[in-house]
């Protein structure tokens, strides 16, 4: 029964994601209608076909698409929408896992220092006179994982990682890394604006290349986390109960921590620190589909994708484009307060 509900909800949300994405692709300075968007998408569809030169990718449709339209939709808007979907998916996924793992309503993907670590990496790259291809995402990704691993090492003693210690270690490390970021910003010079912009979280320089880097990572770890949804449920009963119910508690915690850290790191590396998606979306979905992670995890992730695509559309529609992190926080925080006042999230 859970399985059928999960499929139904996932299908519905996937449909919503496609719809929101198509609408988003029609919005922007250039006036491109839904039909034109559909034609660009269909034109890009290719199937492997054996032709004169051997096996090749051939489009089954022969549609008249202007080069300008193809560039705007296929080269600018769609990669940004796709990246927004991947990042939103990843953040909401990691947020759901962290809230369940910590049994704490305030937990979000950055709670064990992943985002702050990524920020240190990114700002360091911007401030330092180095130049590497894919340098910024690579630095951010490395910083994120180093911070998470550091927090884990600090909180682990004798093979056990108590979640309360982990939480406090995360807070302390975040405070320390915050100091490092401030110091680096002081010396960022010309890079200051870029750095601040990155810290706010945006999807402006989205390319298919970034999608190709982030998507496989998120997909692989999503499958891993999906395999641990039952353990996540049982862990909500407390670690001792989980042990008596046959869960290898410490090993499960390691998997959950590592997987959600990597997923968050991948998202933050390509988009900067976009807040509130990983905090709000899981709460909303929990109200709708209930606390069972078997259904909550995939639906939260999909809803996160929808939410970020939609908010990023708003972000790029304004007179002066602003980082989507501002929009998610500006919309997310009041909504969260509303939920809090209605006492929907008090009992976690």
């Amino acid at each position, binding site marked *: 029964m859970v399985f059928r509900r999960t499929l139904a909800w996932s299908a519905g949300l996937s449909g919503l994601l496609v719809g929101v994405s198509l609408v988003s692709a029609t919005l922007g300075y250039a006036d491109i209608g839904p039909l034109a968007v559909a034609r660009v998408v269909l034109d890009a569809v290719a199937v492997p076909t054996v032709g004169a030169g051997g096996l090749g990718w051939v489009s089954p449709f022969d549609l008249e698409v202007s080069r300008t339209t193809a560039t705007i939709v296929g080269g600018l808007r769609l990669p940004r929408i796709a990246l927004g979907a991947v990042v939103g998916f990843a953040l909401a996924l990691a947020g759901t896992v962290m809230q369940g793992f910590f*049994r704490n309503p305030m937990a979000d993907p950055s709670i064990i220092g992943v985002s702050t670590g990524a920020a240190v990496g990114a700002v360091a790259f911007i401030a330092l006179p180095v130049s590497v291809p894919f340098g910024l995402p690579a630095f951010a990704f490395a910083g994120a994982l180093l911070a998470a691993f550091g927090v884990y090492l600090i909180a682990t003693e004798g093979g056990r990682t108590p979640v309360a210690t982990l939480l406090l270690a995360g807070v302390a490390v975040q405070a320390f890394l915050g100091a490092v970021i401030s110091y680096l910003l002081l010396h960022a010079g010309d890079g200051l604006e870029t750095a601040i912009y990155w810290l706010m979280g945006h999807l402006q320089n989205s390319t298919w290349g970034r999608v190709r880097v982030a998507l496989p990572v998120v997909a692989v770890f999503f499958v891993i986390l999906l395999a641990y949804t039952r353990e996540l449920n049982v862990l*909500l009963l407390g670690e001792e109960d989980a042990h*008596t119910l046959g869960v*290898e*508690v410490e090993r499960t915690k390691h998997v959950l921590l590592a997987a959600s850290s990597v997923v968050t790191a991948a998202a933050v590396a390509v988009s900067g620190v976009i807040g509130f998606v990983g905090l709000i979306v899981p709460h909303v979905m929990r109200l709708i589909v209930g606390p069972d992670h078997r259904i909550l995890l995939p639906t939260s992730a999909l809803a996160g994708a929808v939410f970020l695509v939609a908010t990023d559309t708003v972000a790029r529609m304004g007179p002066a484009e602003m980082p989507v992190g501002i929009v998610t926080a500006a919309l997310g925080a009041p909504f969260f307060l509303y939920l809090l006042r209605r006492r929907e999230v008090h009992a976690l």
Partner: protein
Amino acid sequence: MIRLDGVAVELGGTTVLESVSTTVETGQFLALVGPNGAGKTTLLRTCNGVLTPDEGAVRVDGEAVASRSARALGRTVATVPQETTLAFDFDVRDVVAMGRTPHRSRFATADDADREAVEAALERTETARFADRPVGELSGGQRQRVLLARALAQSTPVLLLDEPTASLDIDHRVRTLSLARELTADGRTIVAAVHDLELAARFCDEMALLADGRLLATGPPGEVVTADRLESAFGVRTAVATNPVTGTPTATPLPERSSADRRVHVVGGGRRAARVIGRLAGTGATVTAGVLPAGDIAATTADAVAGELVTAPPFEAIPPDRRAAAADLVEAADATVLTAPVDGANATLARRSRRLLALENTDPPPAATVVSESELPAALSAEPSRRSTTAPR
């Protein structure tokens, strides 16, 4: 079968269990009793593998618990915890279904065996009625039964219960323990920490008395529940008697004696005397009684709570040595209480008292002050104790 061999556990530098060895045979119900902090919960946690003993080993069916995987243990030992922290609000049925976790492979959905086990567990624990309600809406007692259902759904040969009746009403206490009793008939082995000695004695096969991390006694309840053992375990005097309804031992804790207490001697037998003896003992006085017919209910009570007691064979003249012994007690007492009309030897005794109090309808001698049963403790303390006021002779 569960076997504990010299189990010792240290938690945070404190020894919580020390050389605990015992065996619970398959299909037996062992009740763990003992004061708070005796180590009952810790003992259960070594049996389900949550704690690894620092010394010794716990074996279930010959295999050491510490060396088995959580999944293998989850199929062998189920635990009903005292309380559980349920973070997000699951339905009762969902929580019970979590008991099936060790039986399912990672991606498998629930099969018929799972569903049957869950429904059966809901039925047996009488939780089916609220199976579709969120656990957070239930009362503490209902939640405790849900945890029991979860453990039953686990379908394990060994069941550990930690205070399974703590927040239950009297009806469900008995039902829960008789359910545990029934489960032993299916061949399950049960270890339960129970605070209520009387309930424990009534439903278990064997009892283990723990105090300060050591096993003081194991055996049938009748052998374990004795005033001496309970006093050394709990540090409180108890009156142990046989429950007339269940035929199992019952222990009643008594208040501590104060050093400046007074002595009261009770003359007369029967229920009324038994009540008075219990009541006076409850005020902290040293109560003596006699001469009572052996086997009289007052004699039984006095035997449990009173300081000294003189009995004589019933339906016979009281032997002179018994009479003298009782006279000594009367003379030593600050006051003597007459609880029934007396004649013969007992009437003579009453006359030798320092201060004579008599309950109503006892046909008392003129020297007696008549008081009601409820006024008695106050009447006795109104007069200062002899030892505290009389100058040394």
